[in-house]
């Protein structure tokens, strides 16, 4: 292992995002909203929740909503994740949007969700371990 690699491997992994994030959690499941809000809190962010895609769109309608990140569940009543993402992008919302899928979703379903305008997709259950490095990577991009 080179000296640089040794130094990097000894560096502590980050425990928070590179900047404090204002996050919108969009999920029809109260447990997931609670879990994801807690994860965001633990990585240094603050969050607001919406119970489905339509609520997320309504939040942005007056143009005053300003979220750094939206965690968008795929399957929701009223308006699903793909439709909400597409609508938000049409409304010129520039927030990072991470789609939240399930392991049961196949490649085609994930690709279709990405096509709606996501920055990335992650399968449930979310954790600090899978969300934090992704967010920091997207912040670098």
């Amino acid at each position, binding site marked *: 292992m080179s000296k640089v690699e040794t130094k990097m491997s000894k560096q502590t992994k980050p425990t928070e995002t590179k900047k404090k994030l204002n996050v919108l959690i969009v999920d029809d*499941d109260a*447990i*997931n909203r*609670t*879990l994801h809000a*807690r994860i965001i809190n*633990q990585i240094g962010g603050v969050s607001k929740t919406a119970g489905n895609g339509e609520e997320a769109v309504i939040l942005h309608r007056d143009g005053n909503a300003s979220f750094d990140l939206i965690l968008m569940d795929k399957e929701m009543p009223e308006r699903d994740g793909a439709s909400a993402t597409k609508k938000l992008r049409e409304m010129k919302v520039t927030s990072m949007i991470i789609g939240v899928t*399930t392991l049961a979703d196949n490649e085609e379903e994930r690709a279709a969700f990405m096509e709606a305008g996501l920055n990335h997709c992650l399968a*449930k259950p979310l*954790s600090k371990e899978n969300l934090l490095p992704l967010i920091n990577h997207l912040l670098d991009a």
Partner: protein
Amino acid sequence: MDALISQLQRQFRDHTISLYQQGFLDDQFTELKKLQDDGSPDFVAEVLSLFFEDCVKLISNMARALDQTTGAVDFSTVGASVHQLKGSSSSVGAKRVKALCVSFKDFCEAQNFEGCVRCLQQVDIEYKTLKSKLQDLFNLEKQIIQAGGIVPQVDIN
């Protein structure tokens, strides 16, 4: 007092390990516990409370949808409720409940009434059993704290 604390801590460790070994809980429960800290000391209890409320509501929905006396069985509603229960059991690490939901979903898709009724009965038993066992675990935690001890971190692996 130290002897009491040690005994309670041992019981807590044994009970926790048995919940995993007997398949009641999986790694997701471990992840859930990591989200609890001094700032949110009741986080796990709050999330589990949401889960058990979900179980009551969804099982009631499924029972209504499977009630033949009210007309044709509504497999679509049953399927939607099973899907939700599978999601929430997965989120809290309720391994046996989640596994039952997988079979239940198959019976729904096949419109197998007897299979669905059997699964509903099993899901009802399973979530109540889990609730009781977790209550025992939380009671042990409480007793350890009340005796002045520290709740041990249990390494499942």
